[in-house]
């Protein structure tokens, strides 16, 4: 049986992915911000393998602006699908039908799926579907992707081929239409049907550079003549007449009632309030961290730790509750010894594999809460508001307001975060966003942060976790600022974004997303972390001669378990590298912390897992300097937060950046930040101890090597700090000084803000005047 290809095309945020899921029974990610879908997805329509449905990124037009929109254009033009389902947001009929007029010019049949039928009434809109269908010459089916209304009818229509064939409507005014038909006639000789001659004709008329080769001089002069009649350029004429056509249709088949202020407007009075917007954003993020790391984390993490590693008592919030439990690890360890197994086998199971994996699984409950909060925020429509009110700040730093979306998505996982950077139109802003997104604490970094936060601020660890999130944003902005100043040509960028209505998120999709992310987290713990734990155990329990150096007794009451893992292979490597990290760990020489931090390059979860294996289960007891020196703990967090992300994120970054040079620069920036920032914080911690000499084996108390390490760090840090200060000075202080001088001179509108606006305005005017001088000779109509 032949497989027919069916495209799902529509505006951003029109509900394509929800409809895709409803039609195929699959489960793709849904959100309420434009641009959730960034790559095309394929699936079979329910009830057979004969109808292949392709979900495409949302577009407003077939002239694309961003990379993911080009995907859609390429799909529509080059694969010529048998049928296009054009999903339409019924509450924004005109803008949606504008795209329909373009799709109708393709050589594919089009079915219009009128979505959001369920909320039309509450918006005071009525649409005559039959009339709309006859005016468009296309089959129109009223659906609600969310509630499932009309979906069966849509599938039935497709299966039974009972839809109108594309009759290629006449959209334009007579003279324009005549010219386009004329161009089409010419093109018919050159293009096959498959190349959409009708669509190409319009593009030739518009002088689309992509179709330039098809144009000729006689066409050009005729188009010029039409432009003179309309006093607009060709592009504008086409857009204008498409919208005229659509407006006419709308007035004939649609009525709108004046509605009282909508809920969205009421909510925006609060969430976009001049004074409350940014504090509310901070409060919302604080609430997310309080709920996940604070409340759920403290309720569950000790308990889960007890299940795996055993305990006498567990602490919940500030209270200590007696809870005597043997724990899976010690239980299995004991069984192995009873069965006559050797100590190393018990140690492998108890302190290697179970402790390694448990240290990661421990954080699952708080991650589930974090995932849910993020899914809720994404589906509610609040994401675009954040982009909206942060745009002005982000613009100053050379980023777009839309960059905040990757930064929030990235708090789940950097990979989708990096990919969602595609919604940023400008290439420079987009690349910068891609490089900076991995700085955001992702779910794999959360275990490190949550673990050490509770040490730094017992009972209020979530406050520290939150501070880490905002520190990450500060470092992101600072890096963006430096990047902005390293580049000379400042191109004009713009911010064009729809503000969708607020929606109460579909709980089904929100929980599905949580489920998917949770499953993938458990999978990683069961595979990558499990295998890594094994290798870490081997490398820390054997020396270079493959002699066992691990514990010789598993009795927890023994004062000395007889282990000498300081002689192990990993310790051997770590002891060399640890010199570099003496300042970063607050003047402590720790090979265990060093090798663990470096394992973050494979997967960030591996950091706690490795600490746990090296410490033999109890991390805080094995690494007392974390509790002894809070700066050392914070610096350990920072090193892992800003260091090179895991392999998965690196691959995503490389793909999205598409340039080896940019990729190498990105890694350099990350290494520089992680090392210098953690050294800076560590040095503060070291100074707090009165520059205590670290204990280094074999060097005695007069170790010379750490001094060298410190000096190197000191020099490096001074350079970084000077650079940062210079950038801050050049971008904020100096322009303000010179601006104020200029403003005083002209004396027009006071000093700072008014004058600045006026200056911007004049610049825009000059540019416009240059452009306009030849076009409109008689301007002064007023």
């Amino acid at each position, binding site marked *: 049986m032949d497989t027919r290809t069916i495209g799902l095309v529509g505006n951003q945020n029109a509900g394509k992915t929800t409809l895709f899921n409803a039609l195929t029974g699959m489960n793709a990610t849904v959100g309420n911000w434009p641009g959730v879908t960034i790559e095309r997805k394929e699936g079979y329509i329910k009830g057979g393998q004969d109808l292949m449905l392709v979900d495409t990124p949302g577009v*407003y*037009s077939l*002239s694309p*602006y961003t990379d993911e929109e080009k995907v859609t254009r390429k799909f529509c033009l080059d694969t010529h699908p048998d049928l296009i389902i054009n999903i339409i*947001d019924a*509450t*924004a*009929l*005109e*803008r949606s039908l*504008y795209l329909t007029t373009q799709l109708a010019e393709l050589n594919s049949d089009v079915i219009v799926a009128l979505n959001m039928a369920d909320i039309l009434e509450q918006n005071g809109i009525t649409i005559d579907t039959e009339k709309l269908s006859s005016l468009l010459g296309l089959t129109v089916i009223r659906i609600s992707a969310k509630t499932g209304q009309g979906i069966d009818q849509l599938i039935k229509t497709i299966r039974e081929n009972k839809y109108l064939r594309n009759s290629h409507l006449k959209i334009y005014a007579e003279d324009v239409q005549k010219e386009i038909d004329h161009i089409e006639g010419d093109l018919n000789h050159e293009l096959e049907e498959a190349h959409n001659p009708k669509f190409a004709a319009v593009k030739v008329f518009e002088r689309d550079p992509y179709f330039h080769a098809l144009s000729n001089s006689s066409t050009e002069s005729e188009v010029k003549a039409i432009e003179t009649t309309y*006093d*607009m350029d060709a*592009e*504008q004429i086409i*857009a*204008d007449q498409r*919208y005229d056509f659509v407006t006419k249709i709308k007035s004939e088949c649609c009525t*709108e009632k004046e509605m009282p202020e909508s809920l969205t*407007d009421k909510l*925006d009075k609060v969430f*976009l*309030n*001049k*004074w409350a*917007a*940014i504090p509310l954003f901070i409060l919302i993020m604080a609430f997310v961290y309080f709920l996940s790391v604070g409340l759920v984390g403290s309720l569950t993490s000790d308990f889960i730790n007890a299940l795996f590693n055993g305990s006498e008592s567990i602490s919940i919030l500030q209270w200590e509750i007696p809870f005597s439990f043997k724990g899976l690890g010690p239980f299995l360890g004991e069984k192995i010894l009873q069965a006559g197994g050797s100590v190393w086998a018990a140690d492998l199971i108890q302190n290697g594999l179970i402790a390694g994996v448990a240290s990661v699984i421990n954080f699952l409950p708080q991650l589930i809460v974090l995932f849910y909060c993020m899914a809720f925020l994404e589906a509610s429509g609040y994401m*675009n508001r954040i982009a*909206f*009110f942060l*745009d*002005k*700040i982000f*613009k100053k730093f050379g980023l777009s*307001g839309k960059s905040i979306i990757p930064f929030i998505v990235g708090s789940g996982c950097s990979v989708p975060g990096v990919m969602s950077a595609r919604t940023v139109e400008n290439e420079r802003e987009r690349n910068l966003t891609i490089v900076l997104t991995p700085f955001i604490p992702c779910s794999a970094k959360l275990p490190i942060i949550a673990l050490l936060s509770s040490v730094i601020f017992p009972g209020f660890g979530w406050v520290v976790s939150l501070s880490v999130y905002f520190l990450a944003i500060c470092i992101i902005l600072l890096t963006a600022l430096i990047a902005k100043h390293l580049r000379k040509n400042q191109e*004009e960028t*713009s*911010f*064009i*974004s*729809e*503000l969708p209505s607020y929606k109460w998120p579909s709980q089904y999709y929100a929980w599905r997303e949580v489920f998917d992310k949770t499953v993938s987290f458990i999978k990683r713990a069961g595979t990558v972390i499990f295998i890594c734990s094994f290798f870490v155990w081997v490398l820390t329990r054997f020396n270079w001669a493959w002699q066992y150096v691990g514990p010789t007794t598993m009795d927890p009451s023994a004062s000395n378990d007889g282990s000498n893992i300081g002689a192990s292979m990993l310790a051997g490597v770590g002891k060399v590298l640890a010199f570099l990290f003496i300042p970063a760990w607050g003047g402590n020489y720790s090979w265990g912390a060093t090798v663990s931090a470096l394992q973050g390059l494979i997967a960030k979860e591996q950091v706690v897992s490795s600490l746990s294996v090296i410490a033999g289960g109890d991390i805080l007891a094995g690494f007392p300097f974390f509790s002894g020196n809070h700066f050392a703990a914070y610096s350990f967090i920072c090193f892992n937060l800003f260091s090179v992300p895991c392999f998965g994120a690196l691959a995503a970054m490389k793909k999205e950046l598409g340039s080896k040079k940019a990729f190498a620069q990105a890694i350099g920036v990350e290494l520089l930040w992680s090392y210098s920032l953690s050294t800076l914080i560590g040095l503060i911690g070291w100074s707090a101890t009165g520059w205590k000499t670290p204990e280094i084996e074999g060097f005695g108390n007069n170790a010379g090597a750490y001094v060298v390490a410190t000096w190197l760090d000191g020099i490096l840090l001074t350079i970084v700090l000077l650079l940062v200060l210079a950038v801050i000075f050049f971008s904020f202080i100096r322009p303000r000084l010179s601006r104020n001088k200029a403003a005083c001179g002209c004396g027009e509108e006071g000093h700072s803000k008014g004058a600045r*606006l*006026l200056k*911007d*305005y004049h610049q*825009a*005017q000059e*540019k*416009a*005047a*240059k*452009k*306009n001088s030849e076009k*409109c000779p*008689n*301007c*002064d*109509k*007023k």
Partner: protein
Amino acid sequence: MSIPDEHPRRLNLKAGDYGHLSDLKRGQKAIVIDFHNDNAALRRHLLDMGITKGVVVEVKKIAPLGDPVDIKLRGYELALRRIDMMGIDIQVLGDRYGH
């Protein structure tokens, strides 16, 4: 035709006045009469989003820091930066209270 090019930023526009989209206050409605934008991609994008000659726009929301601005047109809401709105010429229709 573009009319208000030589004007400085005008505040307190009244019904019937000419100005730029960026001059409107919250709640004011206006009709778009022309563009004078020299960025072809931006212009194309704005056209596709429905900002064509003769369309009625209303300033609905202004970001807390004064930029960008959210305008309502053709039944939906669109956020734009002020600098881009300066390139759009309008004639004020009044505000939603009929002033």
